[in-house]
């Protein structure tokens, strides 16, 4: 037996130990004996342990409850061991056999024979016992039973007699047995006995436990109390659990570790590994006062709003009024999913079990994946902007009538291009002057020339006096200004005009380089008054009247100083308002209400206060070369046109930069004019077109001016790069008169 063999080896080792111990001076014999006794006592248990590896320290299966008993036993056995110590040492084999003789026999005097006999106790089968002790008639053992298939017996019993095969009924008997016998369902076929045997109560219990997945052992207690082996006084672990010596690797330095470390050391020496430098932050210890923050006095975050409860329309069986009609359904299906009002359509099902699976499931899951992937759900490929929505909301031109929209009549200057024109303040007469020196006076409506004056040089500017009690106009030529009285005016007006221009008693002459020459004898065929500007001042390019008709400002085309002159009719006096002007003056204008004076040079428009003699404002239109400007009748707005096609609208109260820049002409702007009464202004250009704008100015300072382009009037021919040279509105009527380089003067009517 392996166990006994091992036990022998063990005992030999014990012997050596004991001998060593006996040689040693310090070790008490009692301990050693106790150990050996222990070994001897629990041999069957220790044998398993010894057969295992010495490193694994397993607790011997010792019952805690039996501790005291063992103690007493040990003490008893101590005595016995003390007694037969020598025997044990000498006869190991004997001791072994003693241990395995079981059960102990008793010598009993027989009653019958009167002699002693050996009686063995009854064998009690236990877990330790052999299964052969079971009460089984067939003793063939664990062999394949088909060996006995064609034999009349099943095997042999304990006495060596044959065990005969039991009678076996047919299938009907089996069936009847299952029907009749109430315990047939607890029977099982016994292979050894070749017949059905009823299962015992213990076996049924085991089956039940296996079915329930429990431990099949009924005695097993999964909730056993912990056994505290080494806790408590007197139970400390003093000795190692295993007597195996410590392995060598525990105390020998590792060769591989050494190689690895040497590799790192070499790398450090060669500078391949550089240790990280301690940072400044590391040097100074940092503390975070996490509890020092003052408690926030903000209200706690609001709880999330509750999701809306489903309504009747979300039911699988909604009321009829929630169901969509056919048109609604079609409209819902035709709209894009983003534009739909709700994300579902109410639908009626006769029963809840007929409701299909949620059709949006895959889609929503996919969208959720897109969200997790940080991809936008809606992918718009292009910007869907209605181009009409980008246009400013302007009223239609038809709602802004009247404005001129067709050419009513045309008056021709046959010889030369018409530079200038002017319309009488009552809106009845037009005076137009051309470059050959001819001034024609004609009716606005009929267009037939009534009177004609011929001058020696070309006419640069014509302007009617705005006075209503006198009627005359001024024509500017080379270095001269001529005053004319139209024919056919009433005698009262005629005398008033004559007394204004050629008074019988001349005011005292002033010191000036300008000569005022009255033509004696008021003839209707020539100028009644002539002002001679200084020589070399060139063509007088522009004339403008103050609104009261007493002051007249003239601009000459010469680049020298003194191109601007201010003439006062009542005093027959002329003066140059500016001693020095930077740049060439393009145009001058009187403010309609205030004593202000606009001067447009090549780049800037300056506003002077004439009463205080100082510069008020400088407007910067950003135009390279200003060609024309006009001031709104209210006096708060001014438009400036340039040769670089730009038209700037200034709000004088707003800023020095243009409020609006219009660039509608394809060529240089030549002339601008505000209508005196209607909310209109017009611009003419070298491209031969006239553009009419609606310009409504609001009296409250909050609303911006409304500027609406209304109409482009075409009809003038472009000759030598020059188009429409001057435009003027007819007073009191929405009519426009334009003078073109092609020698024609046109009247545009509404």
């Amino acid at each position: 037996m392996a166990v006994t063999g091992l036990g022998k080896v063990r005992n030999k080792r014990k012997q050596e130990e004991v001998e060593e111990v006996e040689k040693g001076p310090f070790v008490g014999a009692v301990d050693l004996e106790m150990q050996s006794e222990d070994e001897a006592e629990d041999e069957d248990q220790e044998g398993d342990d010894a057969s295992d590896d010495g490193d694994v320290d397993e607790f011997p299966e010792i019952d805690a409850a039996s501790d005291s008993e063992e103690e007493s036993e040990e003490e008893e056995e101590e005595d016995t061991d003390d007694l037969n110590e020598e025997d044990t040492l000498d006869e190991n084999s004997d001791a072994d056999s003693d241990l395995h003789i079981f059960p102990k026999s008793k010598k009993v005097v027989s009653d019958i024979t009167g002699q002693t006999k050996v009686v063995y106790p009854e064998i009690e089968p236990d877990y330790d016992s052999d299964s052969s002790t079971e009460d089984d008639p067939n003793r063939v053992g664990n062999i394949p039973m088909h060996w006995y298939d064609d034999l009349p017996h099943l095997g042999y019993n304990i006495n060596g007699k044959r065990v005969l095969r039991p009678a076996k009924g047919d299938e009907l008997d089996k069936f009847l047995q299952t029907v009749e016998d109430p315990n047939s369902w607890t029977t099982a076929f016994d292979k050894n006995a070749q017949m059905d045997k009823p299962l015992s109560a213990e076996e049924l219990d085991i089956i039940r436990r296996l079915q329930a997945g429990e431990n099949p052992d009924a005695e097993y207690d999964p909730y056993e109390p912990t056994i505290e082996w080494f806790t408590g006084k007197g139970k400390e672990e003093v000795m190692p659990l295993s007597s195996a010596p410590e392995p060598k690797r525990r105390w020998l330095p590792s060769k591989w570790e050494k190689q690895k470390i040497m590799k790192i050391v070499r790398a450090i020496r060669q500078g391949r590994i550089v240790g990280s430098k301690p940072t400044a932050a590391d040097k100074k210890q940092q503390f975070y006062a996490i509890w020092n923050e003052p408690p926030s006095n903000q209200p706690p975050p609001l709880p999330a709003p509750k999701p809306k409860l489903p309504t009747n329309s979300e039911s699988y069986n909604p009321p009829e009024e929630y169901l969509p009609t056919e048109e609604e359904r079609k409209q819902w299906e035709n709209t894009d999913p983003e534009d739909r009002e709700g994300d579902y359509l109410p639908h009626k099902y006769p029963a809840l079990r007929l409701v299909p699976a949620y059709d949006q499931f895959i889609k929503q899951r996919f969208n959720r994946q897109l969200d997790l992937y940080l991809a936008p759900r809606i992918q718009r490929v292009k910007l869907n902007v209605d181009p009409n929505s980008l246009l400013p909301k302007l009223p239609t031109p038809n709602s802004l009538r009247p404005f001129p929209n067709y050419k009513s009549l045309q008056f021709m200057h046959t010889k030369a291009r018409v530079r200038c024109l002017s319309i009488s303040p009552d809106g009845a007469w037009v005076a137009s002057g051309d470059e050959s020196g001819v001034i024609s006076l004609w009716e606005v409506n009929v267009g037939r020339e009534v009177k004609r004056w011929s001058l020696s040089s070309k006419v640069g500017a014509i302007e009617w006096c705005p006075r209503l009690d006198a009627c005359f106009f001024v024509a500017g030529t080379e270095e001269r200004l001529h005053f004319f009285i139209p024919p056919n005016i009433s005698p009262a007006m005629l005398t008033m005009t004559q007394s204004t221009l050629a008074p019988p008693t001349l005011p005292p002459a002033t010191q000036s380089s300008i000569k005022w020459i009255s033509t004696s004898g008021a003839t209707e065929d020539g100028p009644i008054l002539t002002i001679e500007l200084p020589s070399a001042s060139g063509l007088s390019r522009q004339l403008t009247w103050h609104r009261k008709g007493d002051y007249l400002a003239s601009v000459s085309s010469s680049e020298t100083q003194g191109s601007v002159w201010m003439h006062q009719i009542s005093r027959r006096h002329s003066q140059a308002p500016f001693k020095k002007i930077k740049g060439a003056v393009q145009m001058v204008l009187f403010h309609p209400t205030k004593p202000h004076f606009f001067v447009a040079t090549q780049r800037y428009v300056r506003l002077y206060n004439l009463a205080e003699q100082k510069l008020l404002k400088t407007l910067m239109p950003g135009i390279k070369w200003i060609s024309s400007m006009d001031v709104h009748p209210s006096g708060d707005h001014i438009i400036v046109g340039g040769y670089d096609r730009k038209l700037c609208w200034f709000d004088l109260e707003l800023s020095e930069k243009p409020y609006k820049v219009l660039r509608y002409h394809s060529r240089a702007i030549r002339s601008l004019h505000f209508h005196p009464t209607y909310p209109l202004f017009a611009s003419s250009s070298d491209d031969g077109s006239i553009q009419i704008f609606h310009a409504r100015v609001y009296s409250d300072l909050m609303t911006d001016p409304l500027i609406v382009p209304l109409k482009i009037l075409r009809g003038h021919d472009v000759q030598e790069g020059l188009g429409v040279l001057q435009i003027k509105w007819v007073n009191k009527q929405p009519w426009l008169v334009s003078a073109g380089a092609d020698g024609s003067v046109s009247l545009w009517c509404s």
Partner: protein
Amino acid sequence: YDGHLCLFDYSQNLVLDASVHQSPITSVCVVPSSSSDTESRILASSSHDLTACLTRIFLSPESPTAFTIASLHLHTSPLSSISTDPSGSHLLTSSWDGLIDVYDTSIPDDHQVNLERGDDRKKRRKTAPANIKRKAPMAVLESHTARVSKALFAASESAQGKAYSCGFDSTVRTWDVESGVCINTVNVPERPILDLAETPDGNVLLAASTDRTVSIFDLRVSSLSSSTGTMMHSVTPSSIATSETGKHQVVTGSYDGVARLWDLRSTKGAMTNFRVWDGMKVLAVDLAGNVVGIGGEGGMEVWRIAGGS
């Protein structure tokens, strides 16, 4: 525009040429006289020189002569039109100063208006003979706010004593001449009216305006407040005339040199176009029977309306 009155016969011969005014003449009309003298007629003409003149002409075949017999004064602006009533006893003048004056046609014995200034009188004496009597108006009709372009008497008997006028203030006014009161005002927004005409039966008033329309006013409607119809033109109509015989025929002359014949019953388009001159304006038209007289920048032409043309 040269201040001359010319009289033609149908054979395109100049019968008479009389210099009446120094300024352009704007309108002329024949004053019907009750006398049976067929040889003499009185013509009334209005001019830019602030006066209107009555001129007696003698149509003797051998030597037609003309004498200006009276000048009508008051206006302070050029006159735009002159017209007579059917009986020939009264004249209406309209002027740019917004006034309408009523004159009678009788020749006064002495000057009713004195010239203000001596030098002015001197000047006039030089040019005008002294036998021209200056007349003052009987009444002044004053309501227009802008230039009056035409004033005429009502033609029908039912509207005796009434007058119509139109002006650049876009109104057509009806006047009671006797009392000088404006009875009715029709406002057509933003349509300065150039010329006015009335059908002979006195039912319809036609007004040509600068927005290229001829407005039709039905006078039978009791309280007339707006135009009842329009005839659209492609260019500005300058003048308008109705015929005494053809009840529904209207002739308009316009600035493109085309005279158009319209039928009042269909205002969609013109019946006939007469292209008189190219590029020259028609300034006056008249319609008598089936003869159309057209005057303008190119001279004077007379067209005959044939049946189907």
